[in-house]
């Protein structure tokens, strides 16, 4: 991305030619990374970027072709959430992150595939059909931002945006061998992100390298009055030179290396941590005693929030409507039956149950209390260390024909990614090695609130020292 930006300025490449080349690659895409490709809009953006680049003030993203997960609103371009209920929805406004990218001259190529409403870990639960992993097309790219992950890994865009509620950026980043950042809750505006679980959702970048992810993060972060959970503070640009790891205290939670972790994943992550140590980092063993409860807490809190967020899909103002209804109530129920897929229904039911009279205290309230204990674990841990390192996922990408059809087993794949969402912390996944089949393994780094500088700095320095991120499919 940064090299392309330099080539534009030396007139060795032009945004229009570059965009045409990406569009041509997308036309030949066999991984099903995109739901909608906006050729016309992309070429219009590219022409505008050529004008913008005549000014010395043009930013790093001017003319850079990017892709957007299809649960982020784009004015005039269909935004489906991979759901039948929104299959014809055309937003009348841009999400704040899209507006910011456009203002900085980025070229929006199109909208990428996901699990319906970002609920899933495989990018198979989509009206557009499954996305395949460019590392091995017989395998899942992970989810729910698997379309963005595959598009980046296959070189169909220079970078992409995803969203992460319980690991939906980091898991596909790990499975596809790319970099993905889940920013601090409140640092990137959620305005225009179709809500799944509002206290957990964050938009973030997915890119071939940490530097590229940092450029995208810098472009989208910042206070937004249109998002009432946006945090007003000074957002300084990331130092793209990386940081000196000498003396950096790296916490390694023993709870992240227990039962269920594939031994080959463990080996790769431990070797990644050894690189950080070799570069001067000091390893500190830490405890996150309540992290193991994260999956149970998450699938109560996230589904409870989803059950109320998704109440808006009632066939009245937008989206699908069942036409054969007897009355208004019947219209709601038939529309929602027709419009939602099985996993979305399952989660709405689970969340409605957890919030219903008689069960609220046992489920939702209890989960919210354990959420406090998980956040306190991190507060204590960060008094002993500067960043935390561990695996992103317990396994590498699995085969689409060996799909786990038991929902609970799929939920447990989120075990290492969920705690950062519950506590609102920033977390980065970077490639740190391969398993014996040559499938990429992701290492997850976590930091205190708003310390993306530490994550991205450490990630940049790590990638300057290693080549895992350059070993393509």
């Amino acid at each position, binding site marked *: 991305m940064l090299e392309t930006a330099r080539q534009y300025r030396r007139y060795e490449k032009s945004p229009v030619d570059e965009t045409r080349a990406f569009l041509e690659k997308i036309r030949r895409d066999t991984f099903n990374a995109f739901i909608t490709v906006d050729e016309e809009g992309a070429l219009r953006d590219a022409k505008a970027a050529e004008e913008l680049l005549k000014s010395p003030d043009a930013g790093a993203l001017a003319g850079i072709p990017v892709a957007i997960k299809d649960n982020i609103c784009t004015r005039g371009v269909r935004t489906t959430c991979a759901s039948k209920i929104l299959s014809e*929805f055309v937003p009348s406004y841009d999400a704040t992150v899209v507006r910011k990218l456009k203002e900085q001259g980025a070229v929006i190529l199109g909208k990428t595939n996901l699990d319906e409403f970002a609920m899933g870990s495989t990018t198979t639960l989509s009206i557009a059909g499954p996305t395949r992993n460019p590392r091995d097309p017989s395998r899942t790219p992970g989810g729910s931002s698997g379309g963005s992950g595959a598009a980046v890994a296959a070189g169909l865009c220079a970078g992409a945006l995803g969203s992460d509620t319980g690991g939906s950026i980091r898991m596909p980043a790990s499975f596809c061998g790319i970099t993905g950042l889940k920013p601090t809750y409140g640092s990137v505006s959620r305005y225009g992100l179709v809500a799944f679980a509002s206290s957990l959702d964050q938009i973030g970048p997915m890119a071939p390298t940490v530097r590229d992810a940092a450029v995208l993060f810098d472009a989208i972060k910042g206070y937004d009055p249109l998002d009432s959970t946006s945090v007003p503070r000074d957002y300084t640009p990331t130092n793209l030179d990386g940081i000196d790891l000498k003396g950096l205290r790296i916490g390694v939670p023993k709870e992240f290396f227990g039962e269920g972790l594939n031994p080959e994943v463990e080996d790769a992550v431990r070797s990644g941590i050894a690189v950080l140590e070799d570069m001067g980092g000091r390893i500190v063993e830490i405890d996150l005693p309540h992290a193991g*409860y994260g999956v149970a807490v998450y699938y109560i809190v996230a589904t409870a929030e989803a059950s109320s967020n998704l109440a808006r899909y009632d066939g009245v*103002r937008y989206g699908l409507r069942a036409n054969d209804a007897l009355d208004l109530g019947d219209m*709601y129920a038939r529309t929602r039956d027709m419009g939602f897929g099985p996993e979305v*229904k399952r989660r709405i*039911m689970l969340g409605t149950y957890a919030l219903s009279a008689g069960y609220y205290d046992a489920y939702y309230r209890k989960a919210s*209390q*354990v959420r406090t204990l998980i956040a306190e674990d991190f507060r204590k841990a960060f008094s002993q260390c500067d960043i935390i390192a561990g695996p992103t996922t317990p396994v590498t990408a699995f085969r689409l024909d060996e799909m786990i059809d038991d929902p609970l087993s799929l939920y447990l794949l989120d075990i290492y990614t969920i705690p950062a969402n519950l506590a609102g912390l920033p977390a980065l996944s970077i490639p740190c090695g391969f398993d014996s089949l040559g499938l990429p393994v992701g290492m997850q780094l976590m930091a205190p609130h708003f310390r993306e500088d530490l994550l991205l700095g450490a990630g940049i320095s790590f990638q300057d020292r290693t080549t895992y991120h350059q070993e393509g499919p």
Partner: protein
Amino acid sequence: MKITDDEVLHVAALARIRLDDDEILSLRNDLDKILGYMDILSSVDTTGVNPTHHPLPLVNAMRDDREQGCQELADVLRNAPQHDNGYIVVPKVIG
């Protein structure tokens, strides 16, 4: 714990989702299994622990009371399944 068909139907009614017989059966099994797993939380002592509903201690977001533009009605109505004369049309509400 055992979830009954009646409970599944009650929750579906609260969630305004019509379910067919196959869905009732599979949801009953899934909810039973998932909620059974959630029981691990009952072993955590949460006496005196305040619930967290939000990861950051945010207070109300206030803004100035200033006139500003809004979206075009035609753009917004474009997504409505049925509309007439600037109004969204729905099936009858009171039978």
